[in-house]
């Protein structure tokens, strides 16, 4: 017979965020609005079947419902619905009507008087409904089908330059978000202790109601400009998995092959708003033909991957793994060319991007004795960009690492690992430009940190100690140094230092606590070159030349620090009363320092407030059991968030310019600070 047990909760939540000008940050991801809290947690068990049925925040923006169950040895299933809310801006302003839709309209430009503007909120709700069914009644054969649909509705932040240059001002926009993504996976396989084979097919279809947003461009004759959003797409994948165990040398061979295809097709824009190239000053903007070589764009990207891993124990205490991974991306999208002279005198072509990654390596671990284990490994990654990326063609990463893990001291375990990466790259722009008076010459000195030559040192240290019963102490320390090689312009190096510590005590029959403290520091150093307009001088595009007041190099030093600490306590004050408390505080502290040559009169001004935040969160909760079936939970949470940043402090909604080169902002992150009191509670009935 089916035994059912569980609980039902009913209560409420009330929050006070009166101090918040824009409470979007407080209400992001979670629903703190005043209202009812209702949920349940029900379990059913019999000798043949089981189910878990859980629900919380019913009727709220972060509602979650989950039903799992099955029949032992025959099938299992899951059905779920998971809602999420995102809030980016509450109480913003915009000169447009229709913000958040595909048509932003406004008349009477310039519109610098914000008292005539409309209010706007930006955010969306996302709901994921789905489930799976897995049948194993013919074990070792099994069959499984997964499906879900994600619907997203609302708006997200957007913006656009007024003209082709940011010097003409820009406008904040609220782009519509009306998405539906339908995913299906069907899998069948054969799984035993000795071997596992499976084949699966996956389909993911993304649909959007809006592929573009029309908006009134106050700079360009109040004409209708267009920003394009991502179009619908369809992704399909076939995957084959295989594992064979109990091979010689206690080996396991595992392999996976996948082939996927991503497609997105749409009609190409035939006109754009703008001023025809070469037009005399004062010419009004109009719709200009774009002159595409074909009216439709058919995007198509195929990926093919193959992975193989052989793990073995060749001799007692020695564990090895040999592996290889390949990924080939083939971009067969339409090659577009826009040749219309009215728009620009240049032909603009797109660059479908294909590449191939080949990775292989070996890891080995040797247990020296019961308390000590050493490991070493080597990894090689070849990234072949098939000459389709403009700056780098091929990169080769060679990594080796060493590790020692020990537990030879009683109640102490420690691990130290060092890894070294050396990346060599084929730079394609070494002969760019005709000479140092040609702007393209500067390409010779540029680098991209994601693909350029690099030497990396990385250390990792972990220590876990149990000095007394129920007491655990843990420390983790990470150090990473990236040195980008032969870089004149671009990121030259970055460093990362991290330390995390925690102490926890947990007597199951009494009280428990956890204390943690974290610290991180990241530094980036870079060099850049300003070239005046017109440049002047002998070799303006040569960064090796001495600086002049028009053409010079400057250096940037960006630093981010992060501190966090916290304390959590669980205290069963009595058999009936359980109390919990949590305190967490973090602080982020960023800065940017500049170094410019003395011949330069313009001063950037070092930035001391750069994504500086503080968050304090306290949560106190108590549960009192009136009986075995009825209990009351009540809680109070306090949160405070402070933000200071050079890009937002002193925020204004408009930046007036001449000739309608004004900028119109919406208020995003103008004032995200909040201080909130949250009260919550519920009665639980157990059965």
């Amino acid at each position, binding site marked *: 017979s089916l035994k059912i*047990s569980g609980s039902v909760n009913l209560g409420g939540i009330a929050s006070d965020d009166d101090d918040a000008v824009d409470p979007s940050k407080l209400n992001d991801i979670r629903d703190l609005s005043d209202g009812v809290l209702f949920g349940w947690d029900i379990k059913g068990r019999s000798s043949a079947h089981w189910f878990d049925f859980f629900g*919380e925040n019913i009727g*709220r923006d*972060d509602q979650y419902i989950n039903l799992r169950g099955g029949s*032992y040895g025959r099938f299992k299933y899951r059905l779920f619905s*998971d809602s*999420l809310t995102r809030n980016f801006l509450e109480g913003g302003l915009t000169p447009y009507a229709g913000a958040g839709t595909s048509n932003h309209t406004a008349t009477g430009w310039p519109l610098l008087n914000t008292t005539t503007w409309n209010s706007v909120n930006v955010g969306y709700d996302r709901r994921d409904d789905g489930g799976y069914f*897995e049948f194993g009644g013919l074990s070792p054969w*099994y069959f499984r089908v997964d499906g879900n649909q994600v619907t997203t509705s609302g708006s997200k932040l957007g913006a656009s330059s007024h003209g*082709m240059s*940011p010097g003409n001002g820009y406008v*904040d926009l609220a782009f519509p978000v009306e998405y539906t993504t339908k995913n299906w996976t069907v899998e069948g396989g054969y799984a035993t*202790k000795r071997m*596992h084979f499976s084949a699966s097919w996956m389909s993911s279809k*993304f649909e959007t109601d809006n592929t573009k947003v029309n908006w009134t461009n106050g700079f360009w004759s109040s004409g209708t400009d267009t920003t*394009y959003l991502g*179009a619908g*797409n369809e*992704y399909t994948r076939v995957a084959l998995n295989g594992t064979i165990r109990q091979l010689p040398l206690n080996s396991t061979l595992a392999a996976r092959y996948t082939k996927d295809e991503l497609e*997105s097709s749409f009609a190409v824009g*035939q006109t754009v708003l703008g001023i025809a190239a070469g037009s005399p000053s004062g010419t009004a903007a109009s719709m200009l033909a*774009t002159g595409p070589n074909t009216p439709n*764009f058919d*995007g198509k*990207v195929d*990926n093919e991957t193959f*992975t193989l891993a052989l793990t073995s124990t060749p001799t007692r205490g020695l564990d090895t793994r040999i592996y290889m*991974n390949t990924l080939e991306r083939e971009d067969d999208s339409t090659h577009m060319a826009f040749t219309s002279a009215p728009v*620009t005198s240049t032909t603009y072509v*797109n*660059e*479908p991007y294909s590449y191939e990654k080949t990775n292989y390596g070996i890891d080995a671990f040797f247990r020296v004795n019961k308390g000590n284990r050493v490991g070493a490994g080597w990894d090689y990654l070849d990234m072949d960009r098939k000459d389709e*990326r403009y700056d780098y063609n091929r990169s080769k990463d060679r990594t080796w690492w060493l590790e020692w893990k020990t537990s030879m001291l009683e109640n102490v375990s420690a691990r130290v690992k060092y890894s070294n990466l050396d990346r060599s790259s084929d730079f394609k722009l070494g002969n760019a430009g005709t000479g140092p008076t040609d702007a393209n010459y500067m390409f010779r*000195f540029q680098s991209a*940190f*994601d*693909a350029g030559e690099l030497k990396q040192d990385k250390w990792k240290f972990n220590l876990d100690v149990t000095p007394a019963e129920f007491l655990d102490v*843990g420390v983790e320390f990470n150090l990473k140094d990236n040195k980008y090689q032969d870089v004149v312009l671009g990121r030259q190096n970055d460093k990362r230092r991290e330390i995390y510590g925690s102490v926890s005590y947990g007597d199951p029959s009494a009280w*428990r606590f956890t204390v943690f403290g974290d610290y991180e520091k990241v530094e*980036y150093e870079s060099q850049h070159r*300003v*070239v005046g307009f017109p440049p002047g001088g002998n070799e303006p595009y040569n960064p090796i030349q001495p600086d002049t007041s028009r053409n010079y190099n400057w250096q*940037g030093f960006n630093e*981010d620090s*992060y501190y966090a600490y*916290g304390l959590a306590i669980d205290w069963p004050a009595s058999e009936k009363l359980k109390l919990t408390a*949590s305190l*967490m505080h*973090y602080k982020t502290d960023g800065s*940017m320092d*500049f170094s410019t040559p003395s011949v330069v009169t313009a001063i*950037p001004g070092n*930035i001391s407030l750069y994504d500086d*935040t503080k968050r304090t969160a306290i*949560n106190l909760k108590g549960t009192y059991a009136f009986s075995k079936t009825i209990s009351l939970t009540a809680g109070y*949470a306090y949160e405070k968030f402070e933000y200071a940043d*050079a890009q937002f402090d002193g*925020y204004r909604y408009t*930046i007036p310019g001449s000739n309608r080169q004004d900028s119109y902002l919406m208020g*995003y992150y103008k004032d995200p600070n909040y201080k909130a009191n949250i009260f919550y509670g519920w009665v639980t009935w157990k059965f």
Partner: protein
Amino acid sequence: ALSLAFLWSAPAMAQGTEPVCNKCHEENNDSIKSTGHGAGNDANGKACQSCHGDATEHVASRGKKPVVGDKQAKGNTGAQKSEACMSCHAGNRQLGFWEAGKHAQNDVSCSSCHNIHGKVKNPIAQPYSTTSRTIEADTCGTCHKQVRNATMKPSHHPILEGKVKCSDCHNPHGALTQAMVKHESVNQQCFSCHADKRGPFMFGHPPVEENCLSCHTPHGSSHGKLLNEKVPNLCQDCHVQGRHPTAFYGQNQAWIGANGQPVTTPSTRFISRSCLNCHNSIHGSNAPTNRGRYLIR
């Protein structure tokens, strides 16, 4: 998940039979009674012995002699501890790549994460969350402290809020990919949720097409949109070819100058979302001509 996996292969057994182990280990027996493990138990403690070893002498000596071959014994390696679980669960579909995965390689055992007897966990310091569910990251974070830390940062995936689980992206039971991500590459993993970013776009941005992690960090960041570095500096680290991308943007280009006074005309390339004020379609654009090429429409 592992305990669920057990249910898959557990034989249908009559419930209600108390195992002999219950006489001394009542709490442990209670903790598995209503699970698949308990469903497979019998009066001799069949399920208990399948994990803890032969208890014949242990029972006969009334606990004076230890259980023989207890794979969960302190000091055993991860692989030894996992052996007990794998003796039943190795045929589960999600464990197909266990041996090749990082966890098995790094001496992590099933019991490192799965609490078969439901031992009370130590509390975790974190902000108020509207979910009462157990957060998976609390378990993963006991080892992955850097990740646990990242989930609390100002910009983070909704992990602590219970809307994203570690196992949504990673397969802790083993995968052949780096960092055991579930899909074939980082990008395919990210695009599995962020379907609006997957394109293919008419005009792409090569670093985006190669690796989302060139610009983003997945677990949490001090900077908005999970970015590795503040914009414009992140963009400027690659875009060094002159004109406005290479100009400096300091306090004197902000709303308030270094002298503390409002700046009449702050740089639209720096304030608010900086580069994204104009280059809004940073993941790729379907706009024609130079509007798409420069990712501005």
